[in-house]
């Protein structure tokens, strides 16, 4: 009984989703980053810098969505591990293909 009451209190502390203020702040940051990446596409940076800047901003936006909207920052460690493993498979596949394509 005491266990169940302690778990329900931890549930309300954890919260089901980010607060309204955190959600709107994150949304504003995501919209600002979208405007930034669009604006930078019109600046003469050179193809390599253009692509790496765009991908860096996209990764930052994806990180914000995962951490705040998907609640990953406050998820149990096991859940975060599962998410990171998914990204690791993606990067492994891309790295393998890129290594092959760029060296021959």
């Amino acid at each position, binding site marked *: 009984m005491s*266990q*169940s009451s302690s*778990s*329900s209190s*931890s*549930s309300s502390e*954890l*919260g*089901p*989703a*980010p*607060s*309204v203020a955190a*959600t*709107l702040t*994150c*949304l504003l940051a*995501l*919209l600002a980053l*979208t*405007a930034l*990446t*669009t604006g930078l*596409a*019109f600046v*003469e940076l050179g*193809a390599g810098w*253009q692509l790496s800047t*765009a*991908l860096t*901003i*996209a990764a930052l*936006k*994806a990180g914000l*969505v*995962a951490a*705040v*909207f*998907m*609640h990953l920052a406050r*998820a*149990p460690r*096991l*859940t975060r591990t*599962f*998410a990171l*493993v*998914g*990204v690791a*498979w*993606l990067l492994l*596949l*891309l790295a393998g*293909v*890129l290594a092959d*394509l*760029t060296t021959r």
Partner: protein
Amino acid sequence: MSAKQSSADLDRDRDRDRDRVREPFASPDHQRASAELGTWTFLAQELVFFAALFVWYTCQRLRLPAEFAAGSRATDWLLGATMTGLLLLSSAAIVLAVRFASERRRLAGILTLGLTMALGLGFCGIKGFEYHAHVVAGETPVGAHGRFWSVYFVVTGFHLAHVLAGLGLFGVLLIAWLRDRLRTNALIMAALFWHLVDIVWIFLFPLLYLIDPKP
């Protein structure tokens, strides 16, 4: 007799609570953490699915940089940015819907879920308009810069299929909520899926629309 009656009432009340803890879970937290972990496992394999498409994109773009730049110039970056904005707004709206569901604020929740769906439908509408314009202009896999358009249509097509699947899930959940039969965990799981679809588009937008938009 009256004690038996009240116990039956209690059972009925418990059955009506869609968020009650079910077997084999020990607590609401345990039940929710399991639902989230299962969803993340599904999302990890979704990432692997999209990884194949991104690898195809990478190979083609490295081989055909000029064709990709020319094809990308024929896309409308303003429409792409607008669609990005719609998906980001819809993601924020579904976060609020989840919050309202767990706070049992039904009307606010139904409105934000409806807003999420309206924004998602707006995305689909613009995408449909774009597809139509490209086909009419001959910007297809068999036209000029066809290898860019091949990647464009397949990758955005699979993404659009995910958006439609998400909207279908939300439609079912909206009906359940209107009938007061929503399970909060089901909404949390559908929202996680929707955010992943948003993340995929966050990468597709610069990779397809912003390769070289300078006039």
